[in-house]
């Protein structure tokens, strides 16, 4: 294969050509209620050729038939001829790497029988279902995937990477009359099968939360001081801020560029945010991105000031910055775009107790159902939440949806916890048509003043 790739690259007429070949085997077991919905394995094998003609643009061809790479290179070249960029496309310099990255797993999940994987999901499902007679539906899933990705380009890079991932998740739906509530927990790792064993507590927690939510009252809409847990803080920084740091959003839009000018204040001095794909064994770790750029730590906010952003080679060249290792594609069907890897709010100094002790009336919001942002406006649903009354965690409330303006909200962060955690959750990030991309998120507890909480 290596020779055929080299030959195809050599014969390309484009200014720059890259080929990525991916072979992926996945296994999935899903229980829903008493029923096994899925237990099985799939095979996905294919490739992508991307050609750049500098004063035209990009052309892309994707395919399952790997027999004729030369034709595919030509197809991509023909596509590039159609494009018409206003200014020539340049790519930031990246040292061409030749490297083979092999997976390190203690217990390789490819050697584990489907029976054992099924039994594991079944056990977690049973824990959810038997938690209470209020639980009317459940979902428990086991999923693993092992991909081998070859990346090569016309500059001489040749990188082979093995990427393992294994995830377990539990989802519970509880009901009392017309009141239906749900909760979800998941755990992901890149390190091997043994890490997803002994996750009974995770399944129990999902069931417990769903049942507890049945007795929670909807939150009263208003403006509150809010403390958010590591999970919600991680999702918040990823969704509300991280996506704005992706340079493809700003690189040719003068107004967005102004909004994201390096040096602009993005919060009080205590706020530090980074993205880092080089930390071993996190969900978003990607030692070389899908353009062959090595991962590194990219500081985005330092001491409350915007200091960096995430790049592909093209956006980096366009903005006169360095490629950051953030050009990623979910699979061979897609060209890489600027994506996050592992994004985090750095650890602070305030203990949790201190954070809540002066709050007369506030909200402690935990976990995230999901969130959406429209540039500087965001909206998130927390999974569950509690009122804070007179400095104490009080009753549980539900339907807590935080929304607001990013700049105001970041500026309203006035305490950052000393309890940083990487969130080992499954799931992934969506952008364009590319979903789900594994990403990591991390944060300590944080406190935000004057948050608008929607509700009835």
């Amino acid at each position, binding site marked *: 294969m290596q020779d055929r790739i080299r030959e195809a690259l050599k014969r390309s007429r484009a200014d720059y050509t890259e080929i990525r070949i991916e072979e992926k085997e*996945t296994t999935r*077991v899903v229980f*829903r*209620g008493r029923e*096994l*919905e*899925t*237990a*099985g*394995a*799939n*095979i*996905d*094998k294919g490739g992508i050729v991307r050609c750049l003609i500098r004063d035209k*643009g*990009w*052309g*892309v*061809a*994707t*395919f*399952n*038939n790997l027999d004729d790479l030369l034709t595919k290179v030509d*197809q*991509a070249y023909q*596509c590039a001829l*159609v*494009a*018409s*960029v206003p200014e020539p496309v340049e790519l930031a310099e990246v040292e061409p790497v030749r490297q083979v990255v092999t997976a390190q797993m203690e217990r390789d999940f490819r050697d584990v029988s489907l*029976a054992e994987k*099924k039994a594991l999901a079944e056990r977690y499902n049973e824990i959810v279902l038997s938690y209470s007679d209020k639980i*009317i539906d459940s979902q428990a899933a086991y999923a693993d995937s092992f991909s081998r990705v070859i990346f090569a380009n016309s500059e001489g890079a040749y990188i082979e990477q093995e990427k393992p991932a294994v995830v377990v998740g539990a989802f519970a739906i509880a009901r009392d009359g*017309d009141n*239906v*509530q749900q909760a979800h927990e998941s755990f992901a790792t890149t390190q091997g099968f043994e890490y997803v064993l002994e996750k009974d507590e995770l399944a129990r927690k999902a069931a417990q939360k769903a049942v507890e939510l049945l007795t929670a009252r909807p939150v009263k*809409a208003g*403006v509150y001081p809010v403390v958010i847990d590591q999970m919600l803080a991680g999702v918040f920084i990823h969704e509300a801020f991280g996506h704005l740091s992706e340079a493809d959003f700003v690189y040719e*839009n003068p*107004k967005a560029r102004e*909004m994201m000018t390096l040096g602009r204040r993005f919060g009080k001095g205590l706020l530090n945010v980074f993205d880092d794909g080089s930390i071993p064994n996190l969900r978003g770790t990607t030692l070389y991105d899908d353009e062959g750029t090595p991962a590194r730590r990219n500081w985005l906010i330092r001491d409350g000031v915007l200091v960096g952003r995430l790049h592909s080679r093209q956006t980096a060249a366009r903005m006169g910055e360095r490629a950051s290792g953030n050009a990623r594609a979910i699979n061979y*069907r897609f*060209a890489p775009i600027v994506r996050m890897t592992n994004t985090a709010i750095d650890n602070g100094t305030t203990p949790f107790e201190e954070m809540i002790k002066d709050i007369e009336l506030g909200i402690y919001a935990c976990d995230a*159902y*999901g*969130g*959406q942002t*429209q*540039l*500087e*406006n965001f*909206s998130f*649903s927390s999974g569950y939440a509690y009122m804070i009354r007179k400095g104490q965690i009080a009753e549980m409330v539900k*339907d807590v*949806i935080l*929304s607001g303006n990013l*700049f105001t909200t970041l500026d309203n962060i006035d305490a950052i916890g000393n309890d940083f955690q990487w969130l080992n959750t499954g799931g992934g990030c969506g952008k364009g048509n590319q979903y789900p991309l594994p990403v990591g998120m991390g944060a300590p507890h944080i406190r935000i003043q004057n948050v608008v909480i*929607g*509700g*009835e």
Partner: protein
Amino acid sequence: MDILTHLQSQAEQFELLDLQNEKTTVEYEANQLKTCTVAETKGAAVRVIRKGKLGFSASTDSAALDKLVANALESAAYGDPAPFSFAHPRPAPIVRTFDRAVADLPIARLVEIGKEILDLILPVEPNARCNVSLERSLVSASIRNQKGLDVAFRTSPLSIGVEIDRIEGDDVLILYDQLGTTTWQDNYLDFVRRLVQKLERARTITSLKPGKMPVLFAPTGALALALPLTQGLNGKEVYKGTSPMRGKVGEKLFDEKITVVDDGTIDGKFASASYDDEGVPRRRNVLIERGVLKGFVYDLKTAAQSGVESTGNASRGGLFYPPEPSFTNLILQPGETPLEAMLAGIDEGLLVEDLLGLGQGNILSGAFSNPLALAFKIEKGEIVGRVKDLSIAGNIYDLLKNVAAVSQEAQWVYSTFYAPYVLIEEMMVAGKSQ
């Protein structure tokens, strides 16, 4: 060995889907033609029932079909009992989903259509940043099973997605809509003209005091009302007991102005086809008629579990996913009131065009709470300007019990949703308390 013969010897029931897709995509990013892509997909998905248990597997590696069969059989070995059998061969309605005029669209024509779209938007809004994605596919699929089902079909889906960002200072407006069709439409620019009209209208900014008021949902905004319904009407949620509409067929749950139809048989529509994704003929399903719940959407499996017939709503989220019940083209039936008259009756109210974060939260329960991405103030029957920083919340199972009016006018939006304007007499509109 031929894969069908192989399957026949190994399992009492089998189903083989062969899928081939050639897709050409032309993408404009920030008003510039950026990328052109040709994607060829070829793969197979197998379902088997062996010893009464269901198995599934899919592969794009055509050199390893025996591994595909082995994976499907292994999957069945651990599978749960299958309460159903694969589709009987049955005559299906003739639905037009293939059009030479679409299939033969050359890349150059897609590029030109993109240009036409930009030429409509940019003269009106020179600061707009438009992403236009034009995608033309040629899909050939065949489904065969042990009952002698052997259906093959071709479709020529064309989709044109337009996203417009306008950023002025810290003010951001993002609009999106998508045209989806399988036959050539001469009026393919109409949806862009509607977006341009919204942009023009959004130039005037005004303010609105939060509180209870009449809320008029435009067809795009009406998705907020329809989305929870599509979950509640899904046969899978009904069988699982999680749908609030479970066990209520025949009851009047909504205002009589509400009629909801799923129709996969309309010629040329994006989600139309003669057969669903497991070879059952598609059909028109009236789900809510004049406020009365009539039924739900099912695939073979959930239908068997519920003791009813499949409604032809099996859909695969791609080669690698087994069929699930899902909506095709969703129709919220137009009503009898002219839009003019609806507006005229509003002294002060809100017109909701687009919401942020649709679909998040516990929408199965009918609840929604969303900030408004684009909304207008209605004053003395006139649309007077854009209002910002507002949000609405409610539960559709309450709101749709009492609908003030439904417009005669309706539009296809987001490719597969046909909706009129819907007026709710009184709803809570929340704002920032500053």
